[in-house]
């Protein structure tokens, strides 16, 4: 056990012995450190005015990422380095190329979003050499600017690579410092308003989860952060999963991928992109860059959002969820022992069960997570070469928005071309991500054509009674849910027809 939080603020080692578990990085920077360059624009991770860059060790190597300081809890920085807009200038006050390019291109007007934009571009500058305009747009998807219309900011993002660096960021030195700080002790931090527990091993995590059934498990905090900043909830204790390296693993097992629960959306994207360009595009459109860097695949699933975009795609792929807990439970669930399919004690002395992902979602915000259990991994089968696969995310705004409807479809046909397997999964159509079983039924045994699609569409009202809300009306949701099957058919049978207006898939079509 270690009871002191340790991280780097720039080059300075910070040690904190007492801290509330949900104190945000932004409040700490602004109120405690008087580093007021980072701004609060929304306090929900949507506007990016608070963007800072966090460096962490990823399999021994230093990795820098832009994140939203407004919804990140300070103790989750344990073992990391945080860089703010105040750290960018050189010794003699010279602007960093990112900053100078923003000045040169007239990239700021009111200036309030600017520090966040500078930090998002700084992360891009650190990580990538010659990003395309599309990539620059992605890197800025989590940064709202109300003044400029973005054109000069995009220009600055291109210009920054042509300017000389005034200050060298010594990655090796930072990596060495972080390595020195790294340990496998559980961080147990006390604050006036609660405890923060951050185990470094899966075993320690399992013990803590079993011992604290009332604990809030925090992964990327891209939703839990809002429980605090918007819901004003007090969380105690908080168990943070971010220090457990094995949970971030992404392994290619030949026919399937094993993805650790703590793999972030940014980390998962290349692995899923290898399965299908449709998955690449879905992952690209997930929140903003800062959310993709913080949010995790396990958190997205465990949180049980009715619209979380990943579950429909994973359900359509036939993904399975691995739930683990320590076997020292006083009352082991009978099912757990009885089921032969459940791999037990594969590692870490834990008992595990593996279930189809769709079975995890029981009802609105209610999941099949038993006492002491945590989501450990997701098993994602690769697509067979003869499978037809499709994802469409429909939202009011194309990037950085939550789906009104998300549809993910998987079909397999036999030698005669008749559909033998169909998984049509939707988000935004019910209280949970859900398969359209009646529509699937309507497809089975049919040829993949307009008549089959029409039959499936006719069945959708049996599967879903969607709600009207601020994102879309029930009528729109149902209409689009059906039209997405039409889009699927066109894309798989008439590849020459243009079917997307924006994003990677539209660009691919344009060539």
């Amino acid at each position, binding site marked *: 056990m270690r009871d002191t939080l340790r991280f780097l603020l720039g080059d300075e080692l910070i040690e904190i012995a007492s801290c509330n578990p949900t104190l945000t990085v932004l409040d700490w920077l602004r109120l405690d450190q008087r580093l007021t360059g980072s701004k609060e624009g929304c306090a929900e991770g949507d506007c990016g005015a608070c963007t800072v860059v966090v460096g962490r060790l990823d399999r021994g190597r230093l990795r820098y990422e832009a994140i939203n300081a407004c919804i990140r809890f300070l103790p989750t920085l344990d073992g990391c380095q945080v860089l703010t807009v105040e750290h960018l200038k050189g010794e003699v006050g010279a602007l960093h190329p990112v900053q100078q390019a923003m000045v040169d291109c007239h990239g700021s007007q009111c200036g309030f979003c600017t520090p966040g934009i500078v930090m998002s571009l700084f992360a891009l500058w650190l990580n990538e050499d010659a990003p395309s305009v599309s990539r620059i747009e992605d890197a800025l998807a989590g940064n709202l600017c109300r003044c400029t219309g973005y*054109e000069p900011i995009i220009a600055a993002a291109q210009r920054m690579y042509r300017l000389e660096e005034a200050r060298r960021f010594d990655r090796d030195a930072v990596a060495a410092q972080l390595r020195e700080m790294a340990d496998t002790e559980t961080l147990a931090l006390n604050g006036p308003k609660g405890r923060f527990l951050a185990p470094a091993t899966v075993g320690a995590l399992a013990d803590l989860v079993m011992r604290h059934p009332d604990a809030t498990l925090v992964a990327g905090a891209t939703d839990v952060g809002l429980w605090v900043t918007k819901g004003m909830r007090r969380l105690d204790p908080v168990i943070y999963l971010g220090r457990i390296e094995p949970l971030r693993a992404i392994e290619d097992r030949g026919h399937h991928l094993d993805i650790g629960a703590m793999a972030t959306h940014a980390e998962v994207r290349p692995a899923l992109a290898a399965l299908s360009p449709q998955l690449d595009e879905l992952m690209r459109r997930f929140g903003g860059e800062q959310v993709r860097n913080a949010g995790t695949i396990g958190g997205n699933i465990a949180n049980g959002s009715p619209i979380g975009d990943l579950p429909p795609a994973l359900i359509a792929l036939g993904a399975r969820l691995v739930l683990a807990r320590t076997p020292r439970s006083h009352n082991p669930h009978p099912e757990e022992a009885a089921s032969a399919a459940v791999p037990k004690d594969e590692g870490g002395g834990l008992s595990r069960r593996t279930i189809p992902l769709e079975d995890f979602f029981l009802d609105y915000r209610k999941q099949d997570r038993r006492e002491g259990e945590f989501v450990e991994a997701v098993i994602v089968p690769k697509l067979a070469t003869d499978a037809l696969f499709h994802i469409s995310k429909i939202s009011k705004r194309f990037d950085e928005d939550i789906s009104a409807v998300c549809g993910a479809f998987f079909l397999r046909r036999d030698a005669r071309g008749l559909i033998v397997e169909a998984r049509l999964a939707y988000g935004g159509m019910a209280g949970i991500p859900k398969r359209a079983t009646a529509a699937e039924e309507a497809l089975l045994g049919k040829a993949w054509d307009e008549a089959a699609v029409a039959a499936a569409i006719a069945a959708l009202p049996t599967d879903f009674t969607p709600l009207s809300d601020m994102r879309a009306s029930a009528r729109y949701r149902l209409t689009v849910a059906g039209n997405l099957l039409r889009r699927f058919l066109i894309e798989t049978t008439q590849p020459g027809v243009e079917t997307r*207006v924006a994003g990677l898939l539209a660009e691919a079509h344009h060539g």
Partner: protein
Amino acid sequence: MQAGAKAGPLGASRIHDSAARHVAGEAVYIDDIAAPAGLLHAYLGLSTIAHGQLVSLDLDAVRAAPGVRAVLTAADIPGVNDISSTHRHDEPVFATDMILHHGQPLFAVVAQTREAARHAAALAKAVYEEAQPLLDVAAARAAGGALVTDPLKLERGDVAAAMAASPRRLKGSIEIGGQDHFYLESQIALAIPGEEEDMQVFSSTQHPSEVQHMVAQVLGVGSHAVTIEVRRMGGGFGGKETQSNLFACVAALAARKLKRPVKLRPDRDDDMIVTGKRHDFVCDYEIGFDDEGQIHAVDAVFAARCGWNADLSGPVTDRALFHMDNCYFYPAVRARSEPLLTHTVSNTAFRGFGGPQGMVGAERFIEEVAFATGLDPLEVRRRNLYGGASFGGGPGRNVTPYHQTVEDNIAGEVIDALERSCDYRERQRAIREANAKSPVIKRGIALTPVKFGISFTATWYNQAGALVHVYTDGTVMLNHGGTEMGQGLYVKVAQVVAQAFGIGLDQIKITATTTGKVPNTSATAASSGSDLNGMAALDACETIKARLVEFAAKHWQESPEAILFRPGFIQVGAREIVFADLVKAAYMGRVQLSATGFYATPKIHWDRKAGRGHPFYYFAYGAAAAEVAIDTLTGEYKVERVDILHDCGTSLNPAIDKGQIEGGFVQGMGWLTTEELVWDEKGVLKTHAPSTYKIPVASDRPRIFNVALLQDAPNREPTIHRSKAVGEPPLMLAICVLHALSDAVASVGGHRVCPRLDTPATPERVLAAVERMRAEAVG
């Protein structure tokens, strides 16, 4: 302008004065000011119903919450419980009996920390007797149509006769959505009490003088006891013209009560729930026209959801009528406003101030006529332009519905130039051809013009003051009544001063706007900032220069005509003297080196009752063409290309102006496309955060975005440097996006049926229009 204008900083693309501080995080916003000793934090307690009687308010739990120092209600107000900007006494700081919108402030709690105050505010127990809220135009009309302020009627010609005589007529209606300002810096105020009744308030406001008056009124003190200061806002867009009053007054009230500094910063969600937005409108219209696409008569009613009090709804709805002509001549016209009372936030100023809504109406009229006649919309636009000499035009076709003659019309030239430069016709042809072969994705293109009237229609607002100090080392402190919200006003006015004295921008310090230096200022609004404050600052400079010339003439025995301010030096006969040496000598000669300046816009007058006058000093013009792609299966769309030609007169700073044009365009595009405000049936705003309210992101801007400033087009009026106002007009360039979407939708029905696309044209609305096209094309 004076000699040497060409070489000076005026007209050059100087960077924003704060740019280097913006990018370093060193620009100080109010929440960044180091906390004064003893700072407390206030938070507002809000009503949870939209309409009804407040029966009781139990604040015991609020008072008992940890860290709480005081709870304030209307009973604690020493002055008047009202912050109505139009003095109608319809906007209490805190509600006392009737609740008129969801989120109306009931009380404020003051605590040690913001977090403590925010938590405590949620503990109030209010008992209400709920009444049915009127939430939109239809409901307000059905309940009798109570108005928040007097409506306006504009009338010219005999509309009934002209309509009856028109070869063709049609009626229609359009819904035009509202818009949240979404300034990145939310509302905020920091109040610091001084001795006796003195109060200093740092307020994120576009209108320091009004905040000063409101704070004085609420505290029951003279205006001279209250000083308001604002160095910069993190965005305003009209949202901080009157809406900042509440936060400043509550902070000041708490500071007065507790004799300690108090800060009030609402959470983003509360900011959106409490403050007013752009008015949404329903416009019902009848148009008389002929087969040649010429409009004979227009009769239109613009009904607005004004919210629970008048605020600026009178002038906003007036300006909608002032722009229901856009660039077009209506031989006979009647336009009426209907500023309706509703139980929603009190809608307020927002970039364009009603003008955009009026103009969306005008462009719909054109579109209706185009579809009814089968003519190309751009051709119909051209045939109805003011002047319109090319088609049945002639004298008299240049009088607006408010009887002002359009004297500076360049709309036709701007349209022609843009049509050529963006290859409009060829692209339109190619799009139609490609659409025929593309079953799912359809493209559309449209070109729309803008003519926007410049001046406050409240004529007395068209005045400004400035204060210029020259110090003995030749540096200059510049202050004026305008506020900086990102638009680059400070640097533009500094350029004016630098040019006047022949000095560099680095010799000028631009200081925070404060009521203590320049009094009785107007809001920085109506695009007027540089027009008014630039002239006022120049006036101050000219006063000082006249004194310097008089002194120099005596001192160096030259005639005053031989003394000229050149870039970098002053020519005194054959001598070249640097500015610092001149002012040093002038100081020794006991010459006053400080002056105030003043400006009042000439020519303008307006008789609202008669609906006649010359409310605008001049017009700013522009045109834009958009190309879009829509998905006919989902309603999704993408703006692929935009070309803009905009009239800034002789630009004071082309880079700053381009920033206003691009930014205004994208903001207007957001308004017309993805920015949707949704209230539920109880009157609760459901889109109160960026997670649910979607302003454009980087990838929404058009990938091809050609923006040009109209060249060699000085303002015909003698404005500062012959420039034109640029804050608002470009927002309306985005109307071309709505019409490009409409063009794409219309392609589904073979361009025979008018899509009548309402705004915001969300993917859902676009899909609905597509489906209607399909149905009507079949039927």
